[in-house]
């Protein structure tokens, strides 16, 4: 079956903002899909609300709509574009759910749009718990004893019959949101309730817990001719009970016999055939470790996070092949991208071990609930490739970019054996380190297996690593011993610590014995066929396969795992950097550790190294490649943090120099610089002791902004209002960073503006300036931001441009930079300068049309802005208006305060674009999932004393719009005094509020935190914190800043008067603007 020639134009659904459970993997999949379609001469129309993605680049699709992912948008665009087909399976759960809605509302039929790939019926069968169960029974595949419940009564009936523990999984949700394991009645009721609520069809599957079984996954793919193959299987090191997204995973499986492997493989193929999936699909199994009996757990009838991982683990481009299948190709007609000779109809053979480790946000949210279960909590993941399990596992631990590398960690030393064993029962992000500690104390493998149910094979392997550390400690340090350490994945820095030597000595030893890393190719076929894939990983004591060309090369550092504060936007930058470097005639080499991203697709750069973002691993590459230089500007703080060490190793940093980076990042130097340039700044100081902090506070006056230096995403940043809070903060802050001081600044509560600029050292080009909706004090990543500025005076704009020019020149910035200002009383204070690409680079590139990363590369390589054909200064403002709205994942993370604070908490963002601020604002809110459908009803207000005096206008607007205000005691009194009607609700009557939210009686809540965020988190009795948390639980919108609430009301009002929106491609909006 060659391709279907009726399909000439295809609409692709993107997956929207990054949330936990749906991250960069769908940008990777989406880009592959768009390219696969374009290759065939098919016109591609894309809708995605996420502006930080690469797929929303104009070069990826023929037409890009950065618009809210709503049925209205799709109907409008379908009507306008008249596509022949819809490709939904690459847009995650969002894409699939949208396809179902479009089908159910008859839109696909009305406009004669064919759903490409897996059909609606199949999607329903896989996603609907009851239909799926029926199908499994029909084809004789075992499923755990379970029931599908649409209400509490049905659920209860099953629970009473089978007893606990039970697993609850809501239908049609992503990342297990709303699910969990219940071991008693109370937990059961809570989880079932929230599960029913989260499921778009109010349905949950309740099944008998098979916790402790091995969790095995198969990535399978099928074409319309019924040829079906397995791409790879994966084994979770953590047994059933922890969401696979939160599990340590290896590929391929390690502990399965051939019969077990093949039995599950056959089952997966049988299922994909029964479901008639056309494209990629993921099947999850539970395998009894004592009987080879298995159960089918779940099927994802689409490309998933696991398939991104499988693609990177094997080299098989699942998303691309899925797309080709969707337009009619058979697997045997699609070429194997790696060998270029063989067909895609084959199963990869691995000759290495892959380990995946999740990246959790608990280092940021240290008060959060770290327990892992069926609800995914990781924001990202890392993958490592090694020739042995030990080296692969060890590399993966390094890739996580924790403060410490290695397995045996000091913090468990103080526990007694009994305490440690008790801790082993706790399934959280740190368990693997406790296992290592237990092994180092000679607690037996059997006992650890008994407690944790982790397969003994893995425990033995970890034991090998732990025991090897002992050998390093005790045995004479010989070449053989050192080589063995390297083979097992130990870093020189770790060996130095373990052997109590200096790192320099280890490095000298290594040099003396001429021990170098070797690189092997990922080729899908275990060397059976010749492949020239430019996809490498390191190993030791083996033959080096690396093919170094004569061409001058540039190494681009990626940004590692996705975490709060360092997300997909840096992958956008890395990928564009590779393209930019290549365009300049260099060989582009990327190194990164993140399997979800496009940057780790082997055909993005000329060469890809899948390695930890650790200095030793980077230096191995540098020594092998001898590149012209390294680009550190595009990989976020991960890359910037490596600058100093690279420089020390004599590596050329391309663009902005290390001195400049330090000048911008070192508090003291930067302060002096601003002073010298006569640029205002909030007064502040770097302190290391509590006494010093108190002294400084007296000098500067409260409120103050405190934070540790050298961090990403404002980790540990906070506003303090009095000495007591300062002391509390200071005592807890020190543990964040031993080497760097705590910074104390005056907190200026003004308007925050931000800009990105390209600098050649002499001149700067500023594509545009954005203005934040929330006043300073809310992290810029969590603020709503408008481009172009709406309320900044022209004179002030000139000042900002002037400051930027002065700073760029003084810092000798060559490449990209980002500056944040706070404006108050006609003074612009500089908050910070980042000598690198920032979070907003993708947005600014898209809305202004200026290819910022490419210009950054050119200027870093020494070209001037004028030479590049651009006029220095602020680029002409356009009439296009866009509003960026942050998106959070609090529903996945327990015990995290959703209140906006100086510390970043959002996981993703969306962009509303239109021709006016109001329209853009409406779209921004819609894209972020807010609704404007409730115009009357109750709105709850609960404000702190600080914000009460600012709430009058909002309260009046609410009344005017027809809402009834329900206010907590203090707020009620305040409103009463001003003659604004409100109904009082006792501020301590949390159960009543909960009941209101449960019954959906509250349209939304406006709640400003009563004290600082830290106190709220510590005191679980804190009512505000409880209100916000409960609101999250019941999906009741909760605004914690009056500015956000005000913007929402403005949008609501506007939408009320002008409910019909138009949706256009990004270039259309820009075209309109340039004409004006």
């Amino acid at each position: 079956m060659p391709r279907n020639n009726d399909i000439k134009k295809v609409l692709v659904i993107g997956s929207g903002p990054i949330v936990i459970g749906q991250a960069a993997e769908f940008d990777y999949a989406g880009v592959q899909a768009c390219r696969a379609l374009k290759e065939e001469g098919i016109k591609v129309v894309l809708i995605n609300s996420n502006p930080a993605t690469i797929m929303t680049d104009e070069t990826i699709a023929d037409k890009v709509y950065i618009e809210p992912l709503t049925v209205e948008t799709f109907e409008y665009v379908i009507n306008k574009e008249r596509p022949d087909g819809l490709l939904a399976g690459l847009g995650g759960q969002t894409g699939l759910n949208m396809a179902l809605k479009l089908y159910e509302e008859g839109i696909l039929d009305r406009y004669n749009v064919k759903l490409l790939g897996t059909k609606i019926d199949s999607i329903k069968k896989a996603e609907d718990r009851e239909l799926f169960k029926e199908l499994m029974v029909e084809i004789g595949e075992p499923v755990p004893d379970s029931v599908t419940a649409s209400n509490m009564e049905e659920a209860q009936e099953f629970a009473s019959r089978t007893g606990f523990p039970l697993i609850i999984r809501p239908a049609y949700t992503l990342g297990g949101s709303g699910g969990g394991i219940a071991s008693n009645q109370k937990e059961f009721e809570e989880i079932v309730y929230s599960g029913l609520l989260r499921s778009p069809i109010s349905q949950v599957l309740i099944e008998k817990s098979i916790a402790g079984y091995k969790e095995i996954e198969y990535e399978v793919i099928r074409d319309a001719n019924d040829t079906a193959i397995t791409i790879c299987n994966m084994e979770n090191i953590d047994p059933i009970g922890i969401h696979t997204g939160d599990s340590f995973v290896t590929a391929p499986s390690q502990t399965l016999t051939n019969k077990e492997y093949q039995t599950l493989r056959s089952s997966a193929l049988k299922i994909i055939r029964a479901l008639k999936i056309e494209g990629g699909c993921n099947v999850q199994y539970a395998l009894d470790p004592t009987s080879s009996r298995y159960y089918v757990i779940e099927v994802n009838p689409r490309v998933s996070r696991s398939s991104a991982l499988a693609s990177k683990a094997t080299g098989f481009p699942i998303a691309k092949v899925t797309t080709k299948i969707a337009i009619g190709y058979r697997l045997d007609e699609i070429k194997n991208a790696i060998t270029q000779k063989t067909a895609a109809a084959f199963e990869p053979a691995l000759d290495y071990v892959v380990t995946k480790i999740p990246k959790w946000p608990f280092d940021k949210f240290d008060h959060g609930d770290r327990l892992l279960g069926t609800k995914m909590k990781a924001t990202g993941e890392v993958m490592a490739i090694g020739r042995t399990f030990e080296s692969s596992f060890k590399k993966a631990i390094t890739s996580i970019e924790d403060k410490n590398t290695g397995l045996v960690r000091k913090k468990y030393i103080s526990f007694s054996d009994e305490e440690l064993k008790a801790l082993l029962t706790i399934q959280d992000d740190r368990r693997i380190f406790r296992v290592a500690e237990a092994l180092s104390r000679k607690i037996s493998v059997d006992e650890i297996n008994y407690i944790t149910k982790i397969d003994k094979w893995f425990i033995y392997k970890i034991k090998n690593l732990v025991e090897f550390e002992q050998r390093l400690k005790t045995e004479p340090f010989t070449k053989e011993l050192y080589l063995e350490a390297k083979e097992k994945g130990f870093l020189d820095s770790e060996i130095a610590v373990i052997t109590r030597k200096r790192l320099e000595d280890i490095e000298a030893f290594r040099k003396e014995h001429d021990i170098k890393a070797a690189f092997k190719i990922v080729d899908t076929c275990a060397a059976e066929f010749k492949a020239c894939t430019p996809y490498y990983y390191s190993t030791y004591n083996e033959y080096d396969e690396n093919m170094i060309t004569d061409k001058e090369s540039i190494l681009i550092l990626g940004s590692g795992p996705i975490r709060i504060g360092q997300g997909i936007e840096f992958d956008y930058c890395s990928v564009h950097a590779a393209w930019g470097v290549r365009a300049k005639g260099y060989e582009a080499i990327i190194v990164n550790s993140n399997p979800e991203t496009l940057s780790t697709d082997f055909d993005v750069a000329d060469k890809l190294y899948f390695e930890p973002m650790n200095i030793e691993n980077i230096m191995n590459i540098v020594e092998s490649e001898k590149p012209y230089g390294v680009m550190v500007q595009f990989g976020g703080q991960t890359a910037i943090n490596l600058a100093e060490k690279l420089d020390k190793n004599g590596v050329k940093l391309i663009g902005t120099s290390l001195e400049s980076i330090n000048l911008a990042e070192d508090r003291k130097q930067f302060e002096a610089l601003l002073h010298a340039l006569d640029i205002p700044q909030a007064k502040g100081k770097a302190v290391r002791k509590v006494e010093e902090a108190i002294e400084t506070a007296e000098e500067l006056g409260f409120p103050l902004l405190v934070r540790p230096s050298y961090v990403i995403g404002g980790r540990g940043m906070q506003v303090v209002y009095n000495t007591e809070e300062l002391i509390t903060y200071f005592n807890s802050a020190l543990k964040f960073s031993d080497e760097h001081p705590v910074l104390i600044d005056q907190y200026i509560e003004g308007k925050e503006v931000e800009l990105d600029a390209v600098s050649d050292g002499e001149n700067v080009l500023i594509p545009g300036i954005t203005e934040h909706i929330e006043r300073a004090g809310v992290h810029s990543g969590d603020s709503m931001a408008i481009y172009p500025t709406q309320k900044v005076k022209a004179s002030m704009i000139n000042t900002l441009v002037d400051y930027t020019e002065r700073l760029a020149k003084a810092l000798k910035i060559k490449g990209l930079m980002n500056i944040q200002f706070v404006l108050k009383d006609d003074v612009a204070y500089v908050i910070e300068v980042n000598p690198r690409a920032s979070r907003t680079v993708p947005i600014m590139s898209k809305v202004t049309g200026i290819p910022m990363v490419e210009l950054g590369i050119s200027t870093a390589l020494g070209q001037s802005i004028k030479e590049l054909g651009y006029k220095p200064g602020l680029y002409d403002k356009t009439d296009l208006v866009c509003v960026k709205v942050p998106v959070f994942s609090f529903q996945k993370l327990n015990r995290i305060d959703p209140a906006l604070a100086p510390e970043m908490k959002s996981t993703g963002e969306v962009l509303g674009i239109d021709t006016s601020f109001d329209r853009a604002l409406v779209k921004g809110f819609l894209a972020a999932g807010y609704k404007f459908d409730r115009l009357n009803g109750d709105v709850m207000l609960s404000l702190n004393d600080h914000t009460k005096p600012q709430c009058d206008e909002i309260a009046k607007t609410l009344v005017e719009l027809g809402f009834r205000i329900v206010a907590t005691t203090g707020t009620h009194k305040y409103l009463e005094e001003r003659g604004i009607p409100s109904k009082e609700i006792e501020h301590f009557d949390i159960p009543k509020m909960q009941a209101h939210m449960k019954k959906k009686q509250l349209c939304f809540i406006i709640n400003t935190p009563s004290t600082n965020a830290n106190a709220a988190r510590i005191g679980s009795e804190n009512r505000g914190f409880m209100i916000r948390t409960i609101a999250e639980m019941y999906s009741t919108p909760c605004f914690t800043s009056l500015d956000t609430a005000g913007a929402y009301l403005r949008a609501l009002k506007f939408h009320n008067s002008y409910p019909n929106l138009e949706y256009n491609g990004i270039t259309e909006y820009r075209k309109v603007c340039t004409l004006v």
Partner: protein
Amino acid sequence: MKARLLLDNGMIFEGENFGAEGTAFGEICFNTSMTGYQEILTDPSYAKQVIVMTYPEIGNYGINKDDFESSRVSAAGFVVKNYSENESHYKSYIKLKDYLKQQNIIGVSNIDTRRLTTIIRESGAMNCVITTEEITGEVKEKLKNFSIDKNITKLVSRSTEEVVKPAQEKTNGLRIAVIDCGIKKSIIDCFKDRGCELTIFPNDVSADKILESKFDAVLISNGPGDPQDAAETIKTAKELTGKIPIYGICLGYQILCIALGGKTYKLKYGHRGGNHPVINKQTGKVFMTSQNHGYAVAPASLPENVAITYVNLNDETLEGFSCKALKIDAVQFHPEAAPGPYDAQVIFDGWVNEMLERKYNVLDRLKKLFIKRG
């Protein structure tokens, strides 16, 4: 203890010994299966071969009593990257290294198996010696003169006839004669599980002996070595041709090719693994097959009445043929898997159905014919 691998091209790989000690000669080959080392080791087709596993972690699940393909290891040696000293599986009763010791097979670990595989791929199959002793001039000399015994199938075939009966309730009445050239237990099981009774003969059984017992069909099994060396079985196959339906797997398929007047040739480095895509020329469907062969059939050499049934997607080599007129059907790959994917087990279903059809439906069809005419 150190162990060394010396290739015929002079390259030496040094690693750690596991399993037995000593010196062994053989032909080096690699297998890309990620699971199934137990089945591979006990597959008689690997006789006199030193097997390199491309998957680096080996020994993980030990050795169990259910997954043997024969009662012993026929391979000459075993080369891996990382031997897992500590296995973990509820079925495992012995460590891989202890089993190898029992079987007197030398294992060597810590070898750069990817490098080794690349060399085999580039230079082609070659002889080698694997040893825990010093590599002396004498050993080198012996390696130069080493060649695989032409009578190798005899070494792995049984010496006496054996009858294997299916479970009573499964019996379908079919009786198959099997010529054992080194048959894997799974092939026997695949027929047995489908209700067939098998009479397994040594590889040098005569055609008359088979024909006198009125079997429903003959199967020529897999086995080691160059098919052209299997003179006795080729002779038997020739004599059986046209007189009784014949099926062939792997070596059996190659023998049938020669019996029909076709030619076989040696592949540069063979096909060994569980991921070989084979396309069914009739349906266009592809399935993954388990393969283990160093020789292939030259399709152009086959007579005209032979139809090509399967082709390998990777290198377009022939994977199956059938001859309706002579009732011959044979495949190069291993439909019994073990190790490898079960996709091709449908071949057994097809064969058994065909035999049942021939046996029981002849009368029915005749009756129908009469009714039509009548």
